[in-house]
């Protein structure tokens, strides 16, 4: 073994990693919000919608949760140009991650819809709540408490998942690590520093989410 670690050489490139981390966070947040919108709609369909629509949603969810995200994005990125739709790598990754997240969040959110108790709704009705008040004061707080922990958990998983954008040449955290690696050839050094960036990023997100869950939604979250 003749490899000696030289962290000094990658020091000047550190700002690029911060840029990358910022992009990774943007992808995670955008894809999560998109996924949340899809997930809410699909979960509502699965709980209250007509049968035929439920079937379509089921096909979507089952297909996207049973195939790898990486291959889904490959498909989007390379197959869509054949039909005339040209996507940038960033757009392909974002759409792929959003669709994937939507499928997982559908399953998570359905649990929230189905956890509302009939007796609570009846109590609200007895108290003379309007439909809007029922949603605002009974259903939403209850759902937030039930759903917050699994949703924040999935957000952390998605933050880690943004690393596969590097495969498509997006210059997020891992993409920048590949760039710096090809400039300096200090592979172990750069990827270990990148790993620490991810640890810091997800730890920060975990702590923030746990605090939000505790003080805003009164939900108990573990740290991840």
């Amino acid at each position, binding site marked *: *073994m*003749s*490899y000696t670690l030289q962290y000094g050489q990658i020091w000047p490139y550190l700002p690029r990693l911060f840029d990358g981390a910022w992009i990774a966070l943007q992808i995670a947040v955008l894809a999560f919000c998109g996924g949340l919108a899809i997930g809410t709609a699909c979960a509502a369909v699965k709980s209250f919608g007509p049968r035929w629509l439920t079937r379509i949603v089921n096909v979507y969810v*089952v*297909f996207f*949760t*049973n*195939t*790898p*995200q*990486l*291959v*889904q994005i*490959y*498909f989007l990125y*390379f*197959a869509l*140009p*054949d*039909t005339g739709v040209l996507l940038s790598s960033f757009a392909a990754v974002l759409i792929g991650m959003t669709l994937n997240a939507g499928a997982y969040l559908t399953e998570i959110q359905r649990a929230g819809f189905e956890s509302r108790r009939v007796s609570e709704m009846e109590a609200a009705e007895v108290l003379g709540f309007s439909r809007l008040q029922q949603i605002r004061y009974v259903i939403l707080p209850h759902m937030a408490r039930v759903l917050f922990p699994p949703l924040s958990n999935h957000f952390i998983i998605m933050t*880690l*998942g*943004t*690393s*596969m954008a*590097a*495969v498509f040449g997006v210059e997020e955290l*891992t993409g920048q*690590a590949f760039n710096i690696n090809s400039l300096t050839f200090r*592979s*172990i050094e750069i*990827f*270990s520093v*990148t*790993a620490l960036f*991810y*640890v810091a990023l*997800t*730890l920060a997100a975990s702590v923030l989410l746990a605090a939000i869950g505790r003080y805003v939604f009164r939900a108990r979250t573990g740290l*991840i």
Partner: protein
Amino acid sequence: MLSQIIEEWPRFATYYNLVFIAKAALTTLALSVLGCVVGSLLGLALAVTRLTHGPALLPLRLLAIGFTELFRRVPFLVTLMLCFFAFQATGADVPLFVVAAVTVTLIAGAFLGEIVRGGLNAVHRNQWEAAAAMNFSLTETIRYVALPQAWRLILPPAFGFFVMFIKDTALASQIGVVELTFVGKVLNNKGFSAALSFGAILIVYFAISYPLARFGARLEARLASPRHRGA
């Protein structure tokens, strides 16, 4: 897109291509099974280490906590690259499959360690104390008291993780392991349309993952429910 697929299909569905895909599917499975079997053992070891008491074993406990937290918070791709370059730095001529297998084992160990720990923690404190009163050692307590009660809680999420893990191994294609995703890229490079080559790979993944996911859901319904029924 569809007419293109129909046009290419006779060229695509050759014996050679099908064997190529089938072999790659076996590699994907081998990688997942290896990761999960060795990862389970590693996870059990990590979970038990974190259950120990006493200042003598404190460094070991901290190591186990550090290991779990690290590999759960670093993306698959970055861990893979670290392993790849670490093996390269030793100068040993290690097959790429081994590099990928070590990576999946490390990651599976960290995640399964948390699942096992959760299961063992759910065993009531009285049970641990009773075992201690009967002078059981830690290994005996886990072997005869904790695990027989905890496996029902451990198995469903462990299985869920396993199903998820098969799909994560797709990233092993990035260092050149010839598994399903890699084969998708090769077929695409050979001139087949992306819709056909990646579509076929998606279907193979689905064929592996869907039955396992269904089985996992049944397992969850059968094993984990007695606790919720209050039995």
